[in-house]
């Protein structure tokens, strides 16, 4: 066909079906991957992080499921039964020992579920107390981190997005809270909050959780959001200058929309990583406070309060100290290692 350079006629050759050879060029060598999938793949390659993750999942599942199926409960004193004098033979049992009435039942041919870790000084099954303590510690760590995440994210993104005077004001507050010695403030605030809160929540559902835990959450909400908000502000400051934000502004988007739809999703990996690393530090703080007697309310156990109680009978019953110690170290260690793995997998920039 004769080629006419300025004609609007279509070039028919361009519509001939592609040959096999040409098709071969556009065959996908490898399926395209998303950011998330890529990160998970890198995470799975990291053996330490995978093992830590499995340990965390196992401990979490055990702490949720075991209290449901276990024949003893964490606050039942086995030697105490209504209408009878307290049977002291149940107190301070060594692992796999039985109380007097239980021995009789065994002689009668009954199957009695063993006290794997023995019992404590009040005759409570120690195994279930450790399991329950792990549950409390994990729950406190998790929820405290969520609180920190929400507050830190909100304030950090407002500071980063608004900039100017708002940013300056928020960052000065952050600077001051950041330089406060956190542990001392935590101790001070939880001491006082305990006293202030207990009459306020008496009789409500919150009373079951206990004033100590609530004050722990309040303290976290007041003090620990600062590093998270600093991090997010830094991210947002750099993201704010991107062209797609300008485009969004030009088409009339509101500030909250831009923060939610454009800025936050882009710093999500940083957020996830620092939340993951926040959990062990919250567990640490909780156990520290429990050890000083400012943690969960009795009879509820946490790993820290179990260790603290065991300190008195340490000469005779060292296992009661060692068991919660091992569990808490295992939880904190695996959460830390998993967090490190997450950071390496999802934020290769930080690795350098």
């Amino acid at each position, binding site marked *: 066909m004769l080629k006419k350079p300025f004609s609007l006629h279509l070039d028919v050759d361009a519509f001939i079906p592609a040959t096999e050879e040409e098709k071969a060029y556009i065959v996908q060598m490898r399926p395209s991957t998303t950011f998330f999938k890529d990160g998970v793949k890198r995470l799975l390659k990291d053996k330490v992080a995978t093992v830590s993750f499995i340990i965390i999942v196992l401990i979490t599942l055990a702490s949720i499921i075991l209290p449901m199926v276990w024949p003893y409960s964490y606050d039942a004193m086995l030697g105490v039964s209504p209408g009878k004098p307290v049977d002291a033979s149940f107190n301070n049992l060594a692992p796999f020992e039985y109380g007097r009435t239980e021995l009789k039942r065994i002689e009668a041919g009954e199957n009695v579920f063993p006290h794997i870790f023995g019992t404590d000084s009040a005759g409570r099954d120690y195994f279930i107390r450790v399991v329950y303590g792990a549950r409390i510690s994990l729950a406190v760590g998790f929820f405290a981190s969520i609180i920190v995440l929400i507050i830190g994210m909100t304030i950090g993104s407002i500071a980063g997005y608004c900039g100017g005077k708002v940013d300056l004001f928020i960052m000065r507050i952050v600077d001051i809270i950041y330089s406060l010695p956190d542990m001392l403030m935590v101790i001070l605030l939880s001491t006082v909050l305990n006293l202030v809160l207990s009459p306020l929540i008496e009789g409500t559902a919150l009373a079951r959780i206990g004033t100590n835990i609530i004050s722990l959450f309040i303290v976290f909400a007041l003090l620990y959001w600062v590093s998270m908000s600093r991090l997010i502000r830094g991210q947002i400051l750099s993201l704010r200058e991107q062209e797609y934000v300008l485009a969004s502004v030009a088409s009339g988007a509101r500030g909250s929309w831009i923060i939610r739809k454009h800025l936050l999703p882009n710093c999500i990996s940083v957020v996830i990583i620092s939340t993951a690393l926040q959990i062990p530090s919250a567990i640490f703080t909780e156990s520290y406070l429990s050890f*000083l007697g400012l943690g969960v309310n009795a009879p509820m156990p946490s790993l820290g309060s179990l260790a603290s109680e065991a300190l008195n009978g*340490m000469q005779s019953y060292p296992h009661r100290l060692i068991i919660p110690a091992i569990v808490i170290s295992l939880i904190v260690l695996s959460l830390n290692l998993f967090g490190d793995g997450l950071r390496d997998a999802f934020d290769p920039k930080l690795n350098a």
Partner: protein
Amino acid sequence: MSKTTAYIIKRLVLAILTVWVVVTVTFFVMHAVPGGPFLGEKAVTPEVLAALEAKYGLDKPLIEQYFTYLRDVFTRFDFGPSLKQRGQDVIDIIATGMKTSAKLGVIAAFSALAVGVVLGSVAALRRNRFIDKFIMVITTAFVSMPSFIMGSLLLIVFAVKLQLLPANGAAANGLILPIITLALYPTAYITRLTRSSMLDVLGQDYIRTAKAKGVSGMKIIFGHALKNSLIPVITYFGPMLAYIVTGSLVVERIFSVPGIGRAFVNSIINRDYPLIMGTTIILAALIVIMNLVSDILYKVVDPRINLE
């Protein structure tokens, strides 16, 4: 005014502001406690209560009490008398406790520094060898173990089972176990810090140049690498002190060391408000000052560092 001076002034202002915030928060938080400090006393008649409140100045308006307290604290280090230990001033109790605690803390800090730097350098120089991996595994474990657990385990092993060292911190040699307990975490942290910064320095051009000039291995390590790799360790001084201060609260409880940490924990249990306030403020000021010093030192040692 140079940039460094401006930075130092800014940090100084922030530090003073922080101490002021601590004093203010402590004051108002403690006064928010319902019932006041004498509620725990048994059978206090209204007249006695009024007399007690007048004696401790608690009958004046809150804001007046606040300014009196602020003035006393900042001009005379006067935190008032202790409510539970009659006839003793808070500052005296703190000073007595501080003697033991300072010894404990300073020895722990310096041994952590010495051991940490040596282990970290060894790990860096023998990178990926057995010794490096061994050190890293051990330090990872120590970093993840809360100090109260570490202390309790040491107590079981060395004081109860082996009976090598006394379990009571007030006895002779009684401070050895508390010092080890306090020093383990900072040692592990400094080891990791030194290792990574030493590895960073060993990859620098000037190390290669020194090697190419034929400088001996020892001279490279001590003259070039170690000096520069210690800079990040300086920044850890402040946080280390904060750790030692808060760690000493539990460590002194475990080993019953008669120090400021135990005084603080006891003051919380006894609700001795002036003592709680005084200890919080003193310890907080100590931490803030150490943070300030370590940040300024960091800037002075390495002027290349951009602080903003």
